[in-house]
């Protein structure tokens, strides 16, 4: 078990290190950041001055070491436009994104999983076909389109604007969580179908364990194992989706900040946000691996 934990933590650390390096390289490969900052007709001396200011005149390896060293000390850099530390801007936006993301995930989990389980239990019925139809729709619908249609319908029919920072979180969250909801429903259905036909379910029936208890105590813990992986992986899709959704609903979160920073070539800010997204993904995967230890005794034994 300690070997398992150790190897997962080691793998997460390595992934982070590789990501940090790649982010550093890609941003420097995408053109001279100093030239992009100044007006197109600025003289070379001005560009050079900016480059010196940003440390771009040093050799690449020195820049890299300085960058990694800064990260380790919690020194992530300053926005080129506002001069504010990038993490401060990020932390100001974070509550909005957390509010939106957690609501979206909750919608996906608490609607997607129950309807998927219900479809499995009532397999072959109209309910099953309806749930599966819905899940295909939810999964296939692009979230920018769904969000825009929702805003349009609300504006025309109810004369309300669903966007902006004072709007109800439920609408952007529904937009953001819809795809995950569909895939959770579909996946839960197949996972539950697999477990309710397992020999131990029949054995439990033969031992007189009632239907409801068989579902909750026998099927659910087994069906949950692959679902935990899926939920961990869909955090990535949620982060990616939040960029679009926040833009559509004018939601002042991290996704919107990222779009704006890219548009204005705010190097330090983009770099920091990409790292935060990567860190979130790595941590989500690490947490999933650790959750396995709790829910699957077969992994604990390793």
């Amino acid at each position, binding site marked *: 078990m300690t*070997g398992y934990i*150790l*190897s997962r933590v080691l793998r997460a650390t390595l992934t982070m290190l590789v990501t940090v390096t790649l982010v550093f390289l890609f941003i420097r490969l995408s053109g001279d950041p100093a030239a992009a900052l100044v007006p197109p007709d600025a003289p070379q001396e001005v560009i050079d001055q900016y480059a010196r200011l940003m440390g771009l005149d040093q050799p690449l390896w020195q820049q890299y070491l300085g960058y990694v060293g800064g990260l380790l000390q919690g020194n992530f850099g300053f926005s080129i436009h506002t001069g504010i530390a990038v993490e401060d801007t990020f932390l100001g936006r974070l509550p909005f994104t957390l509010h939106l993301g957690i609501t979206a995930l909750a919608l996906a989990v608490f609607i997607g999983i129950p309807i998927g389980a219900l479809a499995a239990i009532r397999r072959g019925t109209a309910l099953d076909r309806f749930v599966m139809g819905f899940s295909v729709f939810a999964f296939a619908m692009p979230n920018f389109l769904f969000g825009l249609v929702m805003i349009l319908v609300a504006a025309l029919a109810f004369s309300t604007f669903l966007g902006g920072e004072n709007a109800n979180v439920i609408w952007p969250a529904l937009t953001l969580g819809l795809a995950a909801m569909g895939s959770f429903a579909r996946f839960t259905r197949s996972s539950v179908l697999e477990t309710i036909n*397992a*020999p*131990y379910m*029949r*054995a*439990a*029936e*033969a*031992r*007189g*364990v*009632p239907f409801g*208890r068989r579902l909750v*105590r*026998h099927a659910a*813990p*087994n069906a949950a*194992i692959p679902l935990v992986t899926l939920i961990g992986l869909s955090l990535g899709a949620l982060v990616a989706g939040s960029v679009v959704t926040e833009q559509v609903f004018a939601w002042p979160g991290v996704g919107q900040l990222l779009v704006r920073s890219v548009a204005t070539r705010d190097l330090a800010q983009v770099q920091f946000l990409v790292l935060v997204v990567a860190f979130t993904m790595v941590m989500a995967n690490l947490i999933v691996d650790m959750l396995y230890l709790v*829910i*699957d*005794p*077969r992994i604990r*034994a390793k």
Partner: protein
Amino acid sequence: MSEPQRAESAPRAPLLSIEDLTVALPVDGDRPEAVSGISFAIAPGETLCLVGESGSGKSVVGQAVLGMLPHALPVTAGCIRFAGAEMPPQRDRAFGTIRSAQIAMIFQDAGASLNPVRTIGGQLAEILAVHGMSKTDRGPRVLEVLRDVALREPERIARSYPHQLSGGQAQRAVIAAALLLKPDLLIADEPTTALDVTTQAEILALITRLKVEHELAVLFVTHDFGVVAEIADRVAVMQEGVLVEAGTAEDVLQAPQHPYTRKLIAAVNPTPRTLGQHGDTPILDATDVNLIYRSGFLGNRKALHAVKDVSLEIAAGRTVAVVGESGSGKSSLARCLLRLEEIDSGSIRFKGQEISTLTGAPLRQLRQSIQVVLQDPFSALNPRQTILSAIAEGPIIHGMAPADARQKAAELIELVGLSAQSGGRYPQEFSGGQRQRICIARALALEPEVLIADEAVSALDVSIQAQILDLFADLQHRFGFAILFITHDLAVARAIADDILVMKSGEIVEHGSADRVFAAPAHPYTQALLAAAPGLDQFQQGSAA
């Protein structure tokens, strides 16, 4: 001599009686009824063996008694009475108080019938909980019953998860679960089929002891007359949903009336084969072969010494059986000889030429000469490939013109006993026995000089087993290849082998001619295996008489 037993059991009121039970099959089934008008009764404290092959409907009867038949299998006639009262209709809620409390059931695969993510103790306590036992009484009762099925360290077993138990321990735990509420009837559906022969003997002894101590009636569903000879008081034989023979164990075993019963009994103690042709020089021989599996990384490296210093030789036209229980290394040995594993040391020679170091083109050439037939004919064939193309594929790869290869494949299909027209069909259209014939034809298409059969009949019903073993012997007689037959089943080894190798923990512990090994086993392990094999001794006396 069977009279006194009848007189003893006749006056007692039956505990379970099944009267004219008929269960329908879905419209697209291969016959209209799963079970057709079956009647039998079991007295308290009596063991009735319900014997039949797969598809005979024997498991359907067991499920019907517990009210667990699916909607697709409706009871269309007859009734089931338990302790004098008629049973509720199938799937009725009233079964909740009958299951476990009055009638308990155990299944073939004990490991799979335990929930993998819950402890044994938790699962046993749950049964007590749903039948209303107070929380404080559950723990002691669980330990008591685990002790009753002779599990050492019951506290540790109760804390364990199913994957931490051996097959035998898991089956004991499942039997313990069945005994928790002191039922009157135990339904055991092939409970020992998945177990090694020595473990099987222990479980049969356990069931017999519990039956006496707890005055349990047992409905024991099996295909194996060897098991029947060990434990049955009475026997009922089913074939395609119909009860073809019933009677006391002595009557049925010693004077079977129905030809089907005779066929099933014959499978337990096959006639030893007449010796194969004698080859002088070995075609395949191995010296001091070692195979070590390594796994894990950094701190927790593991090594498993699967094959230890194994030496053997096979001559053309001879059959050598490698006998051993699961984990003995017999399949690993087969993989070494097939050059599917790189051996760690030792040498393997084909016609005197060292082959353990071959690579590239010479190795591909060698593959032609050593072919394999695997255990599971269902997964050994590609479901998207017609059988003709599956058989012709090998020769085409080895350079035969496609038209000639297909011609040859068609001939082989007939040779293994299938109709010539079936070449264009897909594997799933064939039965298990037919698929194994296809696998044999596929192996023979390359005209191998050595055929390695890895548990090639273990997944088949006993009567089909006999046919496939005959086919092996017949083809060997015709083509003269050597066979290395890997099996856990002593009866199969008896039926096919000239020579026997007994493997245990990766080592060969005994080696000799089949006659000698069966008549006078020298190694204690071989003796234990033969003693544990159910029914063999009774039958030897029976056939001598």
